């Protein structure tokens, strides 16, 4: 479902060029749960940006669900992002003046759905993350774990092919982290493909496959026995 071949990316800093990704080959199948690990500067964020269509590769092919992602206009990228991808961020990135329900409904707004339909779908996903009772609360009235659940509900709202999580537990305490991971595992069991960027070994161990990056190349790519997050809770 995700195919990356010989991906290169460099940034120019002043006169010098910084080669960040030096030929990445990666293939992810439907229903996988992959952890992308690496120290800072390893290129893992750049890779996630390219997969998330927030950035474009200089060289190489990227095919998502049989659609080649290349030479996208801003508009096209926006449509693909909305249709294919759900983002989860370290700092949740909820819009602070919108309540939980409105935040979840936002991607549906950009899908062009009617208001009633948006609210119905958003409620369904809020219920799924167990926060339907909190639908009228603003992000400032929610705990960190609750915020991340709202963010997950938002990522799910547009029913994306792929969920991209950038350090989803980075701002949470251990218990809450495992709680969130348990939920992501549950989603994965239901068939969602999930990509998680992390630098925490215990979080990576909760995925089914770990890809380690160093200096722009893949050092290691192995399937692991998934640690169930519930066992920690």
């Amino acid at each position, binding site marked *: 479902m995700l195919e990356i071949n010989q991906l290169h990316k460099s940034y120019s800093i002043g006169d010098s060029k910084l080669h960040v990704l030096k030929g990445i080959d990666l293939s992810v199948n439907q229903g996988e749960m992959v952890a992308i690990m690496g120290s800072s500067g390893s290129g893992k964020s750049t890779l996630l940006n390219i997969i998330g269509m*927030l950035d474009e590769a200089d060289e190489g092919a990227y095919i998502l669900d049989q659609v080649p992602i290349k030479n996208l206009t*801003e*508009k096209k990228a*926006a449509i693909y992002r909305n249709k294919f991808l759900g983002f989860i961020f370290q*700092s949740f990135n909820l819009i602070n003046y919108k309540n939980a329900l409105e935040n979840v409904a936002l991607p549906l707004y950009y899908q062009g759905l009617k208001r009633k339909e948006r609210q119905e779908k958003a409620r369904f996903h809020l219920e799924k993350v167990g926060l339907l009772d909190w639908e009228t609360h603003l992000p400032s009235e929610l705990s960190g774990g609750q915020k991340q659940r709202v963010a997950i509900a938002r990522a799910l709202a547009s029913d994306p092919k792929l969920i991209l999580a950038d350090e989803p537990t980075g701002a949470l305490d251990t218990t809450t982290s495992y709680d969130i991971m348990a939920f992501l595992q549950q989603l994965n069991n239901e068939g969602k493909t999930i990509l998680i960027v992390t630098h925490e070994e215990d979080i990576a161990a909760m995925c089914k496959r770990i890809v380690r990056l160093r200096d722009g190349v893949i050092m290691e790519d192995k399937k692991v026995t998934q640690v169930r997050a519930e066992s920690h809770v």
Partner: protein
Amino acid sequence: MFDIDLWREIFQSISKNRTRSLLSGFTVTFAILLFTILFGLANGLNNTFSEAFVDDAANAMFIRSGTTTKAHKGMQAGRRVQFRNEDYNYIKTDFDDNVEFITSRIYKNVNASFRNEKNNYSLRAVHPDHQYLEKTKVFQGRYINQRDMDLKTKVVVIGKLVKDDLFLKVDPLGKYINLSGIPYLVVGVFADDGGDDEERLLYMPLSTAQQVYGNNDYIDQINLTYKPDLDYNQAIDFGLDLEKQLKERFLVAPNDQRAVRVFNMAMQNKGINQMTSVLGILILIIGMGTLIAGIVGISNIMIFIVKERTKEIGIRKALGASPKSIVSIILVESIFITTIAGYFGLLLGVGILELVGPNLKTYFITNPSVSISLVLSATLILIGAGSLAGYLPAKKASKIKPIVALRDD
């Protein structure tokens, strides 16, 4: 194309970010308020100037005679110069190119009575043209006409206050008014913007007065208006030329200030005109200044708003917002706020002018007001500037990579 969802987004953004909305709205309201008030006051000042000269025709000239102060061409000083009908005819024919209306005047004081009411009034014996020179408004009956002049009819046109004084509630038209013993038929009643003194007057045909009071062809004064197509300098030249010719005609020394005097409104008007154009430039500078201050203010706020919303823009983009929708949500919001705030400033400004306007007469400010179209265009300029100031950063923000916008600082 009305997009209810876009507006819902915008209203939510406005109402949930109250400080930001109020701040930008206040800037615009204040700019328009200042603009309205300053412009209104300047207009009021202008009104005062133009109102001071509504009484007489703006292009009038008054020619008066007196006694000579200098001996000239064998004539002694102290001689009295007397205008006659032939002088009137001379000016009328010889300066025909430049003269629009012309009239002679004779002044008399009369005891007027009607039935039991009597009073003293000034009488002016004039030509029919006098009506246009003095801007006399006849609202009942008619003014003196050429037939009255030819037949030397004993008719008078009376001022509104003369009518009120003497005729009380009787309709004066067709009644005879007694002027120092001689009955005259009242043929008209007039009003005059020049005020009470101008309405406590009587007009009669010049020829009648010359026959009744002295049986001569003397006249006291000649008034005329120059052709309106003369500019100020041409009119001033005409006045000077006329004065020179008359002085030669009456053998008066060219530098004699008393014997023949031509008072030319053009001289005065030129000054007033310069004054008002300076005032106009001043108004323009004030207006532009306020507007520029407003533009700078709203631009700063827009840049600040876009900066503040960078993260939100990043989130929206990651969720699938197109660059166009990002730009439009910011722009429509700013245009909406500026429009409402500008309208509010306009209402406030006009309200204040209405409220304090009548009390400013002592400060030479009459009826301070602004044309709505002017303030509307000022508001439009502000909206345009605000949009432009918002558009550039919004456009830039819409191009920011979401990951950059979302980066935790």
